[in-house]
């Protein structure tokens, strides 16, 4: 099977987005990576609204919490409230270590909570772990339609 995975990064910091891309590349991820910079865009993307009418449904969302317009927890709540969207695994990826943020994320249905590591080595190994787990070990929900070959 040669499927093309779709990863959506929701993060307003292009440097972080770039690091995730680098990390994924280093982890030999070969799928597509797309990114949006705020909560409103994230929901538009997932609900295929406006500019994102043609967007593909992602297999995994990497979601920052500290987002402009609508914050990560609100985006997470919206994703987990919809019958279709809730199937998409969401990895909350935040620099916050507050237990409040961690608990709230799981309460809202986050599939896991990962702390953004401070140095490159740890960051890359985290990316490798995410890639390994979600795109190799785990079975993702089947996508009835489109572009998976």
């Amino acid at each position, binding site marked *: 099977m040669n499927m093309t995975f779709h990863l959506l990064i929701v993060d307003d*910091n292009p*440097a*972080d987005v770039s*690091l995730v891309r*680098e990390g994924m590349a280093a982890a030999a991820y070969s799928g597509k990576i797309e990114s949006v910079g705020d909560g409103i865009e994230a929901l538009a993307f997932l609900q295929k609204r406006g500019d994102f009418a043609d967007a593909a449904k992602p297999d995994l969302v990497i979601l920052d919490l500290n987002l402009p317009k609508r914050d990560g927890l609100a985006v997470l709540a919206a994703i987990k409230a919809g019958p279709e969207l809730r199937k998409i695994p969401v990895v909350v990826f935040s*620099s916050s270590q507050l237990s409040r943020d961690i608990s709230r994320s799981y309460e809202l249905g986050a599939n896991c909570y990962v702390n953004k590591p*401070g*140095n*490159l080595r740890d960051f890359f190994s985290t990316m490798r772990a995410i890639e390994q787990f979600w795109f190799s070990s785990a079975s993702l929900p089947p996508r009835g339609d489109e572009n998976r070959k």
Partner: protein
Amino acid sequence: MPGGDSRTQEEILDRQAVRDLADQKFALDQHSIVATTDVHGTITYVNDKFCEISKYSREELVGQNHRIVNSGHHPTAFFTQMYRTISNGNVWHGEICNRAKDGSLYWVEATIVPFLHPNGKPRQYLAIRTDITERKRAEEALKDSLAGKEALLKELADQKFALDQHAIVATTDVQGTITYVNDKFCAISKYSREELVGKNHRILNSGHHPKEFFQEMYRTIANGKVWRNEICNRAKDGSIYWVDTTIVPFAGNHGKPYQYIAIRADITERRAAEQQLEKQAEELTQQARELARSNADLEQFAYVASHDLQEPLRMVTAYTELLAERYKGKLDENADKFIGYAQDGATRMQVLIQDLLAFSRVGRKEDAIGTVDCAAVMQEVKQLLSSAIEESGAVVICRELPKVDAVHTQMVQLFQNLIGNAIKFRGKEAPRILVEAARKNGQWLFAVKDNGIGIAPEYAESIFVIFQRLHARAEYPGNGIGLAICKKIVERYGGKIWVESQPGAGSTFLFTVPVRASQKAEAAHA
């Protein structure tokens, strides 16, 4: 009457005279104490009343010298004068104190009449006396009581003098009209006596006190009770003075007060001092409040700053590392070196910010205070430091430790920092660390004792200041945050931390933690 005609007219007259005399004598004997003595004072006759009062029988008296009833009360001169009078043929009047047979004293008012020979010399003396013992007693009593009253009056006058020297005194009638003021009252109020007497006491009202204050005062004294308080008055020149005032109501016949006496002491200076103190205390409280607020602001700032600085710093760290990884050896030597410096600085800054964040987190109300078993904390700390303990060959001895009211993670941090330091700053020998606690002055005194390199006394305080380091980074790594955090944790619970140490002789870090409320109660019952 038989044979009446044989009597001469003279005889009849004589008989009549004798009867009259006898009647008078009888009357005299009923009334008076009568005695006769010869010129030597020997008693020749006494009547019944004499016997009665002297408690001697007639037989015991007649033939005795009159001295038998001498009481010793009068001086010799008294009797000398008496004898001189009567021996010269003159009548003597006087009051004499005599002694009865049973030793009791009695007073008589005496009239002694000398009866004379034709040559003018006395032949005998007749003494007529009246018992005046009761009168004398009443007189004595009156004299005593008068003397007593006099002394009392004198004492009162003395006391009033003393009071006037000392206190501000005034009396008012029940309407509050001033009826009397002493000099001190005039001096402090700066009014003359004439200006005050007849005026209502309100003349001195400063307006400082609310109406209720005086209403309460009048209610108290009108009910006959003593009122005491401090009053602020206004003198004639407008100046304000304070008097500690006691007002005593004086009740008339019906129990209603008819006047009030007010005794006052000038406390203006004391009030001024008190007000100064109050003002200072208020200022201090204000300063403390401002300090607490600015402290809280600063902590909030440190927290926010350190938290928010982490994000951009993460980028710097990650991208300098990425640069190093991807371009090392591909540029020139200098580039490699520069990237190295940037990386090193970024890493150090990251540690600093994390420390600052940890420091500013102490005291934030994120964790609840509960019962913490320090023995369990030490177990946890040994576990956390197991690799350092193993590498250094440290021996950590832990005596019996109490339970305290604290945040568990903070107690772990406290002990971890202290034990960690004891291992880090070890001497040539393997570290030996003793942890113990004892109750002292209502607090737990903890001691963490090591055999390490020790600290010079001049650094004993500065080591607890954030980012203070005594050693080069290469020698002993660290940022100088550990003890600052310890201090903040200990002080958060109202305790103190300090060190006792000499270079080369090991250190003992001591800190206090308040005894838990329940343990205090146990101690009180013990």
